[in-house]
């Protein structure tokens, strides 16, 4: 068994990985740091504070400053800064002020100016106007910190799924292109080894290495934030294996003819960078128009991210993973078949 080519290729890949501290950091350490930092978003949420630029001419400065000192702050939600009109505009453009309170700040004809795309600014304007009219904001809200409803619950399953995509594309695609560029592939293929042993060894190594990455991230999420899959654990493992197979196939296809690592890097980036935007790893696709959402949900990485997230957050099990897993297996088989068929060994 130990002298089977695929076992030796598996061992070589695993050693190359584990003997390189930089790879360990970027594959295991960096995702943990990402979750640790991004997981804080929302976790410590309290009242948001908006900086308001109060516009005043030279002659109005003293009066405006007095008004700003006495104006209600909505329990610390608003901080007023008096400035000239052009300075206020610069402050808004640079994000230092959330909105501009224009002339007539001290009566009902007051005007707020802000970027309409900034929903936080619109909300701040409504709150400010209400407070200045003597209204009081309800304080009876509670930061939701229970498992299942936080940003980290949304983020972690996405990162586990996306880590698998990334691990396959870089760990297999990039490695194959490097082997070809270094003429190592040519040397390997000058032996009587059957070519499929090469792919078998690479796949086995990826199961181990991507598995380690996913397990590390899942363990950190469970221990630090209590993020645990609410659905079937076995279904989760099967889904991840199907995803691994699909993106292993894609990596082999992408590397099948590429001779230069720079071209390989470009190809991998062409797949992974859109994933950040179109696959809902970091934020929900619900903000997109419905036609774009439908399109995004047909993308294989989105299918993997969504399925893993459903298992984690919505208790999905075997019944829910059938279709996406079949799609991922089909994609893997087509890509691997084409990749092996057109692979440039020499």
């Amino acid at each position, binding site marked *: 068994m130990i002298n089977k080519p695929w*076992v030796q290729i598996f061992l070589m890949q695993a*050693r190359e990985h584990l003997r390189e501290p930089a790879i360990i950091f970027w594959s295991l350490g960096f995702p943990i740091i990402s979750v640790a930092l991004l997981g804080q978003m929302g976790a410590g949420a309290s009242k948001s504070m908006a900086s308001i630029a109060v516009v005043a001419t030279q002659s109005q400065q003293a009066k405006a400053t007095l008004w700003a000192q006495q104006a209600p702050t909505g329990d610390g939600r608003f901080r007023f800064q008096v400035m000239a009109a052009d300075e206020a505009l610069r402050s808004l453009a640079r994000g230092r002020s959330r909105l501009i309170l224009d002339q007539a700040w001290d009566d009902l004809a007051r005007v707020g100016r802000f970027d309409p795309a900034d929903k936080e600014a619109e909300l701040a304007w409504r709150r400010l106007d209400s407070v200045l009219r003597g209204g009081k904001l309800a304080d009876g809200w509670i930061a939701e910190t229970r498992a299942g409803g936080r940003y980290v619950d949304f983020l972690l399953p996405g990162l586990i799924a996306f880590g698998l995509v990334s691990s396959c594309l870089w760990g297999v695609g990039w490695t194959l292109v490097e082997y070809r560029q270094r003429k190592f592939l040519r*040397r*390997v293929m*000058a*032996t009587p*080894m059957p070519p499929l042993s090469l792919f078998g060894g690479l796949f086995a190594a990826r199961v181990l290495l991507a598995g380690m990455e996913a397990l590390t991230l899942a363990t950190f999420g469970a221990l630090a934030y209590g993020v645990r899959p609410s659905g079937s654990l076995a279904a989760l493992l099967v889904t991840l294996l199907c995803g691994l197979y699909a993106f292993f196939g894609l990596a082999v296809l992408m590397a099948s003819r590429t001779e230069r690592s720079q071209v390989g890097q470009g190809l991998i980036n062409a797949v992974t960078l859109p994933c950040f935007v179109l696959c809902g790893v970091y934020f929900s696709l619900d903000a997109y128009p419905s036609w774009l959402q439908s399109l995004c949900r047909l993308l294989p990485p989105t299918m993997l991210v969504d399925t893993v997230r459903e298992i984690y957050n919505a208790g999905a099990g075997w019944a829910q993973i059938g279709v996406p897993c079949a799609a991922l297996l089909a994609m893997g088989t087509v890509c691997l078949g084409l990749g092996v068929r057109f692979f440039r060994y020499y």
Partner: protein
Amino acid sequence: MSQFAVEVHSLVRRFKTLVAVDRVDLKMRLGESLALLGPNGAGKTTLVETIEGLQEPDEGEIRLFGMAWRGNERVLRSKLGICLQETRLPEKATALEVLRLFASFYALPLARAGQVLDQIGLASKSQAQTQHLSGGQRQRLALGIAMLNRPQLLLLDEPTTGLDPSARQEVWALIEELKRAGCALLLTTHYMEEAEALCPGVALMNHGKLLARDSIPALLKKYGGGDVLEYSTDKPSATLAKGLPGLLDIKLNHDRRGARVRLRDASLALPLLVSRAKRKRLRLRETRVRPASLNDLFVGLTGGSLDQ
């Protein structure tokens, strides 16, 4: 079984408009050693890689041990030992791990890796990662990979390029050992001394064609041999050596203030050259006479040098 390790008939290999191998015929008997000599770009690597089955010929036929590549890939690969011109092995793998990896490709027991490691003199480096090996050690490891399957034909593409003289000697000693075991050897090189040290037979190659093939003494005899007279003068003179007795060929220096002249017998021509120089009021600055080498022969045949 065929009496030939290599049979190449009318082989052509093209890259777009470049004809890298141009109707080459080549035969090597079992256990025979042949050095393929030629400058960079002569087509040596393309020819060897086509024989190795790593490149497809555009025309012609290749048979190894009487077998064509098609349908016999695994059998032929198990009979060949190959050392490519350039292979960068996995940097983080140790010497022993690399040999074990390749032993598995030949379905050999992993213990064979340890034997080869001893044979190539790297037993003390068994746990050293390949990135920490010297150029000579890496090249010995590459040869070790080629030796793993006890090959019947060894194809080595410039195995000592870039190595210092002592590392080169170590690699030569290893190749000699393999030859003693009855292995046929096809070696490409542009070092004449390497060809002389390892192979009784040489084939000269340039612009994709085989120009000549024989033993070095026979080639020198056949294509003139003789002496080489090299001189330089204080002023340009293109005609100083013209018509010297026993003249075989002349190659003027770039500044025309001197030349490299191949002659049948320099002792007959040298006095005449000196008197001509005196008559033309030229001062001979440096004058050297030596027996012609394979490189001089190559210059005479092609106008270029082997070590270009």
